[in-house]
């Protein structure tokens, strides 16, 4: 009952300094502070993180699954966009 009334929040956790925040799930909460605390208790209780972001789920604009072909498939036959045809100068080291 309560959960139906509470909005959904997406949770992003950064596991180490220098790494990106990664999406790891969602929580129901009535406000941002509550979402942050719930996220802490649900997603970092085994030392998974050092920083948390919460974002209202309805603020995320997502691509539609049915648009997959037109959005992503045209890139599949354009292998020249990958930088695999270049010789890397020795001085550049590992890339």
């Amino acid at each position, binding site marked *: 009952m*309560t*959960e139906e009334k*509470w909005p959904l929040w997406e949770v992003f956790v950064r596991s180490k300094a220098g790494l990106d925040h990664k999406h790891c799930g969602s*929580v*129901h*909460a*009535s*406000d941002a*502070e*509550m979402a942050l*605390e*719930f996220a802490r*208790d*649900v997603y970092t*209780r085994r030392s998974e993180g050092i920083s948390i972001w919460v974002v209202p789920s309805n603020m995320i604009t997502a691509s539609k699954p049915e648009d997959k072909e037109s959005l992503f498939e045209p890139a599949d036959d354009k292998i020249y966009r990958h930088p695999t045809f270049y010789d890397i100068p020795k001085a550049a080291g590992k890339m």
Partner: protein
Amino acid sequence: MNNLLKKDALAQYAAQIGDNGLIIGHRMSEWCFRCPAIEMEMALMNCALDLIGQARALYSYAGTADGQGKTEDDYAYLRDEPDFRNALLTEAPNGDWGDTIVRLFFMSAYNKLFFTALAESTDSQLAAIGAKSLKEVTYHLRFSSEWMIRLGDGTEESHRRVQKSVDQLWPYTGELFTMTEAEETLLKDGVSVDVRLLKPEWDQIVNDILAQATLSRPQNDWAQSGSKAKGIHSEEFGYIITDMQFLQRRYPGCEW
């Protein structure tokens, strides 16, 4: 006064602090499977586990100080009602979510100040336990403060109900700032915390959050006492240890 041997005072002192954690932690664990939302349940159980963990460390140390080979289980499961010296506040019934939050808030405000001071104890073991516990109770204070504001400054119903919780639990807060014989005995050497000195800062924390939560602070400062100094508990306490100690009483020495 001050006839206690230092060794016994230390054992009593460690156990008495542990009792606070065990009893309020057990009370909170009674919410398991009953919270209104799964996220709230995980939050509350995490806090409960912190508090029971603190009790374990303190009971182990009490057993060492006592020197008669008592384990943490002896303290938790094999003592009787008058042996527990937790503050009355910690054994108050769960009531509704507001009652549970107000109890945790009053206790966490105290715990934050208490463990800050205990981390400066001349007893290195107590100081270490104090430093570790401080991080945990700082979060409990944050968690419960947010809820105080949310409920107090929430709907008309939540405001009315949480104000009632504040009024009902208020008379149990004064006992936190009274000294036991063990505390007096250990004070000279800087082992124990002078809890009387924590009251002004506790008032400040509580006043600030009550104001943000649009709640009023009860005017009457009369305090109920008896448990911390003498082991005289409220009626509900017997039910707590009946539940908590059942397994060890029914199957003595049982392990799993």
